[in-house]
């Protein structure tokens, strides 16, 4: 078992990093005597690192007890009658007796139907527990920020209407893309990325549990390399463990392959600006895309690599064009065009700069 899964907190009490939030979440859980219908309508809008899921599972466990852990994955299809034609939708759901988790944005532009039909249907069915009391369900919706405008509009009234029998937990990476109308109906919980000291604390905790000797400063270096992502820190700690144990304090921490690759690209285009080089870079960019690295991540990484090496006056210009082409990429279809356009733009700017400076 990977350490990431092994040390995933199971209950809200075990959470190390966001203790304050975990404590607040605990207050949302009613004492058992009122265990029905007492939660206020709430939802989480927070920055997602894998932490989000962990906290939600811990919260569900707190509400429903161990039954929340018995989940089954189902691939369900729905037939939706939309006037003259019927639409078939397929969606993977993760459900236990008390909660259902789904990502409506998976079905693309038809997500409206998911919200209108399926969520409504689920919200309408009420649970009755063994003592005949009416329970409530929790619907966990992932990636709400990727929902289309119409779908978000549809969610508005649904949330209010069925608030007695159903609570929604919405997850998203950034609440900018969730409409105001939904945000004002939710209790917003912002989860920040863990600070480096907190990551160090977690790494030390794991080290202790695994009986490892961590040389001083080693955990801090792993945390520094992790970009404030806890999962990555734990994974790279485990990688280091496999590579070489006992740890030495100046042991190299292997970077991710693709990051290495992007810095190679940036070095390439700094060295030579010509159509031939552009052609070579295209191959490398394709390689990255084929390996399922999201294009916007590639662009961001490329920008940060370039910014490290550039003169102050060029930085403004380059970051403007990065923003410009990323926006274009979002509007367009083919990511490679825009990545390449950015590279070409950069080459032209840099060449101009070199000619102006060195003649």
């Amino acid at each position: 078992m990977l350490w990431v899964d092994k040390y995933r907190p199971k209950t809200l009490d075990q959470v190390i990093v966001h203790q304050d939030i975990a404590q607040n979440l605990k207050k949302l859980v009613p004492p058992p005597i009122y265990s029905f219908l007492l939660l206020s309508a709430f939802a989480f809008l927070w920055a997602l690192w894998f932490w989000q899921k962990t906290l939600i599972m811990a919260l569900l466990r707190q509400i429903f007890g161990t039954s929340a852990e018995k989940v089954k994955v189902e691939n369900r299809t729905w037939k939706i009658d939309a006037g003259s034609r019927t639409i078939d939708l397929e969606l993977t759901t993760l459900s236990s007796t008390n909660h259902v988790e789904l990502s409506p944005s998976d079905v693309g532009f038809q997500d409206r139907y998911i919200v209108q039909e399926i969520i409504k249907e689920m919200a309408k069915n009420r649970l009755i527990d063994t003592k005949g009391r009416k329970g409530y369900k929790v619907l966990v919706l992932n990636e709400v920020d990727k929902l289309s405008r119409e779908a978000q509009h549809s969610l508005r009234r649904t949330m209010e209407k069925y608030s007695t029998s159903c609570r929604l937990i919405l997850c998203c990476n950034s609440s900018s893309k969730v409409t105001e109308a939904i945000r004002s109906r939710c209790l917003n919980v912002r989860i920040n990325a863990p600070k480096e000291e907190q990551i160090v604390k977690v790494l030390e905790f794991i080290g202790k549990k695994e009986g490892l000797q961590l040389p001083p400063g080693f955990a801090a270096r792993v945390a520094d390399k992790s970009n404030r992502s806890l999962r990555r820190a734990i994974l790279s700690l485990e990688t280091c463990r496999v590579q070489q144990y006992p740890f030495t304090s100046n042991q190299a921490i292997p970077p991710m392959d693709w990051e290495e690759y992007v810095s190679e690209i940036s070095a390439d285009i700094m060295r030579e600006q010509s159509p031939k080089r552009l052609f070579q870079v295209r191959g490398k960019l394709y390689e990255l895309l084929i390996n399922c690295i999201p294009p916007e991540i590639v662009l961001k990484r490329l920008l940060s690599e370039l910014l490290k090496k550039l003169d102050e006056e060029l930085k403004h210009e380059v970051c403007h064009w990065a923003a410009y082409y990323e926006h274009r990429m979002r509007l367009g279809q083919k990511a490679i065009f825009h990545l390449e356009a950015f590279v070409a733009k950069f080459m032209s700017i840099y060449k101009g700069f070199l000619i102006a400076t060195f003649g």
Partner: protein
Amino acid sequence: MAPLLQSSQPWVEKYRPKQVKDVAHQDEVVRVLTNTIETANCPHMLFYGPPGTGKTTTALAIAHQLYGPELYKSRVLELNASDDRGINVVRTKIKDFAAVAVGSGQRQGAYPCPPYKIIILDEADSMTEDAQNALRRTMETYSKVTRFFFICNYISRIIEPLASRCAKFRFKPLSEEIMSSRILHICNEEGLTLDAEALSTLSSISQGDLRRAITYLQGAARLFGSSISSKDLISVSGAIPLEVTEALYAACKSGDFDLANKEVNNVIAEGYPVSQMLAQLFEVVVEADDILDEQKARICKSLASADKCLIDGADEYLQLLDVSSNTMRALCNMPQEFSYDS
């Protein structure tokens, strides 16, 4: 349905005004509508205004007051964006409902029960133009037996032919006093204590949206117990603390690109919503008195274009970085044009 536990209800629903005259702050609207209820004569209506000002509440209240609980089900059709409202629905469902005749006006108890039905179209601005066009003739043909209430945020999204068939009512954002008195009322009912500072914070972060204010209040009450400070409210509302905005602004002012980049990274990692950040940065810039109008204008221009890009779904980090870079160039009097752009 079993009686609900009181505490389970969202306060927004619990304290929703049941009668038109209880709707806060919309004096003209209330006056006209009370008159309507007395004479039981009403035109097609169009309610518009920002969220949380009582549009849906008013529409539901007027329908309830006209028909009472018994007839309400058969006389009122409520459609909102959670129902499919494509052109097919307008052609079938709405038309069928509108076409049914109703018995002549028999006053039932306290309710006037006028001889027409009401169709409430909530969130009408999310209807497509085609669907709106299909409504035009329907509205006129069945005007004897059916009245339409349109509710929307932006009147410009309602096509002109529909808007001209309706009596328009504008709902104003709630003023601070009204909001405070309403909040205090709820606090009394729920046994909460709120100091003056928290009260003014609540009014300012909710920007005239009463629903938002009540939601925040309930959230804070759940999380922090019965005495709520202004800091608790800010953390519940998702507003960005002023220090963070100030830090970014200061970094832009310093003229050091790497420092600004670090601040931007920090903002993103802390998970603050960038659209909110832009709004707060905008306030800081507009209120700053040590910079020229021209500088302000430049910064605002870049804020505007970044906002548009964010709505298109562009990456938050890159957009905020672009804004900071523009702001820095404006503040430090660097040239705005790029020198190496061919």
